[in-house]
């Protein structure tokens, strides 16, 4: 398919281009059918319901998804945030009355909804979807049935890609401001991250010195450079007092900010990053570096990082 052109040779709606690109990236089928619908499962696909649930799973903003089967049946689900909010239409499907009557789909509707989805997405049926704006009634609904629940009940792995190992289970270490110790589990990594070399150590004192005069006060706590400091005594004492109380919490925060617990990582936190003041924090092994940066230190940080890693 030529980029920006439908299979029938008609130009795509401009808004559809990023959607097709997203589907391509996801290695899902992306064929445009007459009328603007998109074919998400061809007749040879053994389980069209997998494609249906993935469509819901990929829908974050509120949308009404109209699914049509080549059998002639169709239904419209209002979805948002990977949840099925409401069933607004069912054609050629028996047993839809309770779901249609519900103001919002809830746990008590899940079995009936699953039966409807299974009937619609029967094996050897082509399945198409049309994405429409959410109706006014759907905008006030914020509960609904999580697609992950429906997938679990149907024993479907939404993240499985043919030929690829399933991704690691998604952790839920929601950061809580000032919280003490959510369990940290490694997050999934991108292809580039998987290619990255094994974690190396970093000379934190060398990193600080390579930052230049912009780093006005700093200290290292723990590790090979433990106790090394530079800058006005009052500022260093303040940083030291903070680390004495918060070193463990800082370590947990760095775990959440990076992809790997305990990894060598450096962070800069400031109002704008390119002027004013910022807080520099780095970890390597058992050592923590904490410092105060004045002015734009963004490029200096990258240079210093490269130098300290060499």
């Amino acid at each position: 398919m030529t980029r920006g052109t439908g299979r029938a040779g008609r130009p795509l709606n401009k808004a559809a281009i990023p959607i097709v690109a997203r589907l391509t990236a996801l290695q899902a089928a992306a064929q445009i059918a007459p009328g603007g619908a998109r074919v998400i499962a061809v007749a040879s696909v053994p389980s069209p319901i997998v494609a249906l649930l993935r469509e819901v799973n990929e829908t974050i903003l509120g949308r009404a998804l109209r699914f049509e089967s080549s059998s002639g049946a169709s239904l419209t689900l209002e979805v948002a945030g990977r949840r099925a909010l409401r069933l607004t239409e069912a054609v050629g499907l028996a047993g839809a009355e309770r779901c249609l009557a519900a103001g919002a789909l809830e746990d008590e509707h899940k079995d009936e909804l699953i039966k409807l989805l299974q009937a619609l997405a029967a094996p050897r049926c082509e399945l198409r979807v049309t994405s429409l704006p959410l109706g006014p009634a759907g905008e006030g609904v914020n509960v609904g049935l999580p697609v992950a629940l429906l997938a679990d009940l149907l024993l479907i792995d939404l993240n499985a890609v043919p030929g690829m190992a399933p991704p690691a289970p998604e952790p839920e270490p929601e950061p809580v401001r000032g919280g003490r110790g959510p369990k940290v589990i490694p997050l999934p990594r991108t292809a580039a991250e998987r290619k990255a070399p094994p974690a190396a150590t970093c000379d934190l004192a060398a990193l600080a010195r390579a930052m230049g005069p912009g780093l006005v006060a700093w200290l290292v706590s723990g590790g090979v450079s433990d106790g090394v400091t530079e800058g006005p005594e009052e500022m260093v004492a303040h940083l030291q007092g903070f680390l004495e109380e918060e070193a463990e919490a800082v370590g947990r925060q760095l775990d959440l900010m990076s992809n790997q617990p305990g990894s060598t990582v450096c962070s800069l936190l400031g109002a704008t990053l390119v002027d004013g003041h910022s807080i520099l924090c780095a970890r390597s092994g058992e050592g923590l570096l904490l410092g105060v940066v004045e002015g734009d230190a963004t490029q200096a940080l990258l240079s210093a990082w490269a130098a300290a890693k060499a």
Partner: protein
Amino acid sequence: MGVIESLGTVVKAFPKARVVAFADLSSSMILASQGAEDITQEHLDALCKQARASFDDPLFALSVEAFGEPHGALVVGEDGVRVFLRSESEPADALCCICEHGIDLPEFVTKIRETLDGISGG
């Protein structure tokens, strides 16, 4: 200019920006993304969580106490550089970016600040 186009402009101007994503930090959702990186929804979710963690305690509290509320964060690791900017007018709006180490950070940060202001203000 729409959000997708705005993000696309950044990626085009900075080829070393592998992913530029617009997020709602309050709901931990990436609402739009652009870039050459082969990235899945799970990766985008992880990126959003890293952004939230970057603007969290205890470093957030230290910054507030010392200089005021931070709206920018950099995270440098083995695998690249992550840049997170929060909108000053709409603090839940944020840009989350994954870049290569060789990127021109001062220029990039300035550009994405303009982009975020444009998105949040539009």
